C-alpha cells in the first residue's frame, strides 16, 4: 500500500534544505514559491530519503487570485507519494519548468500552458498542444468566458439555482467564442482591456484562423479585445432566439 507523505512532513524536509521556499503547508500538500520549484524538485528527486523519481501528475489549478501548479510525485522504490505545489501570481503566471528534473513533465506542462496559460520557463518547446496556435485565450481559466450578471457560463441548470424571477437561462445567439472569432464580439461591448488581469492581447490571438473568414482590418476597439476575455456580451437577438432556449 502506498504511503502518503503528509504535507507537513514534506514541508519540513524542504525547509531543512531551503528555509525560505515553503509558502504554506497543510495535511495534503506543501506549497513552495514558484521560483524555487526546480531546486526543490531536484532535491526531492535526488534525496535518497524522499527519492521522488516519478512524476505522476502535473496540472494547474486556477484560484482566481493566483495559479497553483500541482505536482503529484512518488517514489517507486519506497512506494510513497506526496503532493507538491507551486504558487504563482496570475500575471504573468510564470513557473520554472521541471522538465530537466522529470522528463515526464514535458507534455503535461505543455497541456497546462495551453489550457491554463501558465508559462513554464525553460521548457524545451512550450507550444500549444491541444488547441491551435492563435486560439484566443486559455480556456481552463476560471474567467474564460465570464458572462454578464455573474453567471458562470451555461450548464448551471442543475441544481436549478436561478436568480430570483428567472426561470430559464439567457441564450446567447452565438457562442462568445464564435463572436470573437468572427470579429463581432465587441460591437456593443464596453471594452475595458486594462481593467482585468489576463493574457495580454497579442496580434496572434485575433489572427484569422484558416477556414474562418475574419475581416482583416479590425476596428480599434476590436484590436483591444482580450484573448478569451469577453467582458460583456449583450444579448441582442433575444426574441429571435427564443425558440432555441432549452
Amino acid at each position: 500500500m502506498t504511503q502518503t507523505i503528509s504535507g507537513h512532513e514534506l514541508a519540513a524536509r524542504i525547509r531543512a534544505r531551503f528555509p525560505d521556499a515553503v509558502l504554506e503547508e497543510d495535511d495534503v500538500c506543501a506549497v513552495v514559491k514558484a521560483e524555487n520549484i526546480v531546486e526543490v524538485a531536484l532535491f526531492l528527486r535526488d534525496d535518497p530519503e524522499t527519492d521522488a523519481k516519478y512524476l505522476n501528475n502535473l496540472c494547474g489549478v486556477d484560484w482566481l487570485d493566483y495559479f497553483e501548479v500541482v505536482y503529484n510525485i512518488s517514489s517507486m522504490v519506497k512506494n510513497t507519494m506526496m503532493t507538491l505545489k507551486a504558487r504563482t501570481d496570475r500575471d504573468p503566471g510564470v513557473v520554472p519548468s521541471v522538465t530537466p528534473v522529470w522528463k515526464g513533465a514535458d507534455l503535461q506542462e505543455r497541456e497546462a500552458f495551453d489550457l491554463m496559460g501558465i508559462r513554464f520557463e525553460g521548457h524545451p518547446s512550450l507550444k500549444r498542444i491541444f488547441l491551435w496556435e492563435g486560439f484566443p485565450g486559455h480556456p481552463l481559466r476560471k474567467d474564460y468566458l465570464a458572462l454578464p450578471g455573474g453567471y458562470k457560463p451555461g450548464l448551471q441548470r442543475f441544481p436549478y439555482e436561478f436568480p430570483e424571477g428567472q426561470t430559464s437561462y439567457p441564450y446567447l445567439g452565438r457562442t462568445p467564442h464564435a463572436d470573437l472569432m468572427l470579429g463581432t464580439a465587441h460591437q456593443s461591448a464596453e471594452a475595458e482591456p486594462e481593467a482585468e488581469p489576463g493574457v495580454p492581447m497579442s496580434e496572434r490571438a485575433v489572427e484569422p484562423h484558416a477556414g474562418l473568414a475574419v475581416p482583416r482590418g479590425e476596428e480599434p476597439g476590436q484590436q483591444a479585445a482580450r484573448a478569451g476575455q469577453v467582458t460583456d456580451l449583450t444579448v441582442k437577438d433575444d426574441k429571435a432566439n427564443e425558440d432555441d432556449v432549452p
Partner: protein
Amino acid sequence: MAPLLNWYDFDPFHDLYHWLDKHVESWVVYLVAAVIGSAGILTFVGLGALVNVWLERRLIGRIQVRRGPNRVGPFGLVQPVADAIKLIQKEVLQPDAADSRLFNLPPIIVFIPAMLTFAVFAWAPDLVLANLDAGVLYLLAISSITALAIFIAGWSSNNKYALLGAMRVIAMMISYEVPMVMCFLAPVLLAGTMSVAGLVQWQQHHFLLAAFVPMSVLIYGLSATAELNRTPADIAEAESEIVAGYHTEYSGMKFGLFYAVELINSLAVSGIMASLFFGGWWLFGVEKVIPAWIIFILKIYFFYFGLIWLRGTLPRFRIDQLMGLAWKMLLPLALINVAVIATEVLIWQEADLGGWVLAPYAVVNIALTAALVVVFFRIVTARFYRLPTRVILVRDIQVPALPAPASSALRPPTPLPQ
C-alpha cells in the same frame, strides 16, 4: 474415355487448325490461332481476376475466423461483380499537382506484363500461344516492366507516400530480379532448354523439377511474393506504414485496375511456379483422364492458395530486412544452387550416365537444400532468440533504485511565448 472428354477439351480447335492448314494459306491459320489463343487467355485472365477477388476474400475470411463475403449471390459469388460496379461508379480523382500525362498511364501499363506472361505457358501438350525459345528469359524481362509502371504511378501522384512506395518497389524489384534469374538458371541447366513448354516436356519425361531443384522452388517462392507486393513483402503498399504506397492517389476504377493486376499477377506467378517446377499440365498420367489444361489451372490455383495462406498468416518485413534477405540470404543460396546443379549436369553429361542418375541427384539436392536452409535460418534468426520470447513473472512490485538519467542539466531559460 477419350471421346467422352472431347467436347470440353480443346480438340475441336486442334481439328480446326488442321482443317485450316489444309485449306487456306498459312498466315490465315497463324492469325486464327493467335486470335483464338489471345481470346482464350483474356477470358481466363478476366474470369480469373473476378474469381480471385471472391476466393481471396473468402479464404482470408476463413483464415481469420470470419465468414467473408456471403451476401451477394450464392456464397457471395457475385460479390466481385458488385465490387467492380462500385469501383466503376466511383469518382476517379486526380490530384491537382499530379503529373497528369503520366498519372493515367500506369493502370494501363501494369496490365501489359500481367497479360503477356500467360502467352508462354503450356496449357496442354499442344496448347501454347507462343512457344518462345527464350521463354524463361521472356518471363523475367516482362516482369521487370511492372516495376516501371509502379514507379511511374508513385512518381506522378506527387504524393510522398506514393513516392516512398515507388522507391521501395524499384529497390526491391532490382534486388529480387537477381536471385530470381539465378534460381531460374538451375532448371534451365538441368533441362537444357529455356522454353517453358520444353521444360514441361522435360518434366513429363523425367520427373517434377521441384524434386531436383528444391532450392530454386524456395527462392522463387520468396522472390515471387516480393515481385507481387504481397505479404510478407508488401512493402510497396504497406498499409500500416505508407498508407497505400504507390496507389495512394488512385481511386475508382484506376485503383480497381491495380487491384485486378495484383490478382492476375498472382495467377501468373503461380503459373510460373507450376510450369517450371511442378510439371505444368503433366501430372503422372492423370492428364490423360482429366483435360491437361484443367490440371494446369488447378495447379495454378494450388499455388495461389499458398499465396493467400501466406498473406493471411505473416507480418511484413521491413524494407532493409527484405533487401538483406535478397542479397545476404537468397543470392548466396542461389549461387550455391547453380554451382551444385551445374556440377551435377556436367557429371551427367561428361560421364554419359543414364537417366537413373537423376534419382540420387534429387536425394542429394533435397538433403543439401534442407541443410543449407536450416543453417542459414539459424544464423539469421539467432539474434532474435538471444532473449526468450516469454516474460518474467514477478510476485510483487519490485523497482530497482536507478539513478535518474543524466538530464541536460538545467537548461538556460528559453524565451517565453507572449
